[in-house]
């Protein structure tokens, strides 16, 4: 079953440019230079129930705009959106009962009152029964470890504490679909791990579909099998994360640290392998192509020279994404 179905989605914004100088400012009073800018440009996307999808792109690539259209906040300029079988904008009040949203940069809790009062209000707003609430939220509160925070006003919480509460608040009505817009922004490693573990749990337990945008690619690596890459409003990659890694990387790197200085000539000469000297006793072997080469190379090198340490450097997703954006390499 498709939870999200998006076809040829497009969102244009009118922006105006200011003319330079005082004379320009006066001219701006009467006529302005308008420019149409497509923040989201012809996107098609389907997401199935229970999937965890990472939605990544640079700042201004159109991620947040897409999420805002999917949640019914913004109206699309053209194209069709069906989420949970509904049109988000047209059937807003009915639709929003079936989704949960966390915006990392904005709080949805009431600032001046205790966290539990916010929860209580949300429980009423979403008409959750006492029984469901106690059962479900009891679990959420325990897993996110926010029990001791419940009677504190939101303004007194630290960012990590607040974020966990935000996540809990988005789940009061146990929605089948969860949108997370940069949920781990500015959080420390421990809180990040806690949040990731929790997301995995609800995904397994309730088959919650999760669409996640983040700049922290380790989040995506830990959570998502599938990634959608966005650049200037267009989807440039949609598929498995590990395929992205396989395709995008020219090869692996093996770092040999020898006990003594080793000249270039005593290293094995194999096709598809390039050598690069890091310092006197350290060499980097760059392998292009076959993964089988790794073991062959290591055994060849080790037989000839005494080594202190060997390290296989895998290229991180971050590296891949950086490469894709810098070199404009589009993968399909």
């Amino acid at each position, binding site marked *: 079953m498709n939870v999200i179905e998006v076809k040829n989605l497009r969102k244009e914004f009118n922006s105006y440019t200011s003319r330079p100088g005082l004379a320009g400012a006066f001219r701006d009073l009467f006529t302005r230079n308008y420019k149409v800018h497509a923040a989201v440009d012809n996107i098609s996307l389907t997401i199935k129930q229970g999937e965890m999808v990472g939605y990544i792109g640079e700042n201004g690539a159109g991620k947040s705009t897409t999420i805002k259209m999917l949640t019914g*906040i913004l*109206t699309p300029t053209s194209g069709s959106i069906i989420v949970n079988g509904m049109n988000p904008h047209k059937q807003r*009040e009915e639709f929003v009962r079936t989704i949960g949203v966390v*915006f990392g940069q*904005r709080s949805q809790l009431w600032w*001046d*009152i205790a966290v539990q009062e916010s929860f209580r*209000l949300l429980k009423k*707003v979403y008409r959750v029964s006492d029984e469901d609430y106690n059962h479900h939220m009891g679990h959420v509160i325990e897993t996110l470890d926010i029990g001791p925070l419940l009677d504190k006003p939101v303004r007194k919480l630290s960012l990590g504490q607040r974020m966990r509460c935000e996540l809990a608040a988005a789940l009061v009505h146990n929605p089948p679909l969860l949108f997370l817009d940069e949920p781990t922004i500015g959080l420390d490693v421990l809180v990040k791990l806690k949040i990731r573990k929790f997301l995995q749990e609800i995904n397994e337990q309730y088959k919650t579909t999760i669409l996640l945008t983040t700049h922290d690619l380790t989040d995506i690596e830990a959570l998502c099998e599938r990634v959608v890459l966005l650049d200037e409003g267009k989807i440039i990659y949609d598929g498995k994360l590990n395929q992205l890694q396989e395709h995008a990387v020219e090869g692996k790197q093996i770092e040999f640290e020898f006990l003594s200085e080793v000249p270039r000539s005593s290293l094995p000469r194999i096709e598809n392998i390039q050598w690069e000297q890091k310092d006197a006793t350290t060499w980097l072997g760059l392998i292009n192509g076959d993964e089988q080469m790794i073991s062959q190379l290591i055994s060849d090198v080790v037989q000839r020279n005494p080594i202190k340490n060997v390290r296989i450097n895998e290229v991180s997703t971050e590296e891949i994404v950086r490469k894709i954006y810098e070199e404009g390499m589009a993968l399909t």
Partner: protein
Amino acid sequence: MSMYLEMIRVRFLMMLAYRTNYYSGILIYSINIGAYYFLWSAIYGGKEEIQGLSVAQMTTYVAVAWMARAFYYNNIDREIAAEIKDGKVAIEMIRPYNYLGMKTMQALGEGVFRLLFFSVPGMIIVALIFPVTFNASLNTWLFFFVSLVFSFIVNTYINLLTGMMTFFLFNNTGLIRAKRVVIDLFSGLLLPISFYPGWAQEVMSYLPFQAISYIPSMIFTEGLVGQEMYNALLSQVFWVVILLIPIRLLWSLAKKHLIVQGG
């Protein structure tokens, strides 16, 4: 419905979170009433009455007008403007409720809170210091409260409209300030409408502002009685219904126009 009641409760909690505001509010209102009392005593000099109002009636008018203001006055216009400006309205759009309805409920929560914990104790303080008369009949009290409810609705509607203008202007602090002055002036808070020149009264009778302060205060001081009072109440009802139209229009426009500012 229970969610709206819950919202009123939350608003109570929020008001209680800032107690200093609450105490200083009582003080400021009392000072205001005092200032107007002395001003009006000076204006009256030795005269028995001006424009059909005696000094005692005038003092009561001023006190009641200010205390009623505590109930109908709210800051939802500024809140809506702030929520639009910093993009918080986006959060409100993902909630399964009517944003404007929820704002109205918040305003009501604030109003009820202030009526109970602000107007009533404030009134007692004022009655101890100034010669205010509360000998109105039970009927007058009843009509006063009915009228007060309408004045709350009219004022809240105007606040909603002003707040929503932010969708189109992006920054409307000026408009909000102007609105506040216009309401204080044209609603009869600072000066009873009957004191204005004839042509101004004529103009103001076509505007919704006197439904906010003048009518309930006049009913309480018994400056409006009988048929006149019923007509005044009817005019309030008229505005309660009529103002819904621009609100509906503006809101549906605003939703289409909604650009979430700040990312």
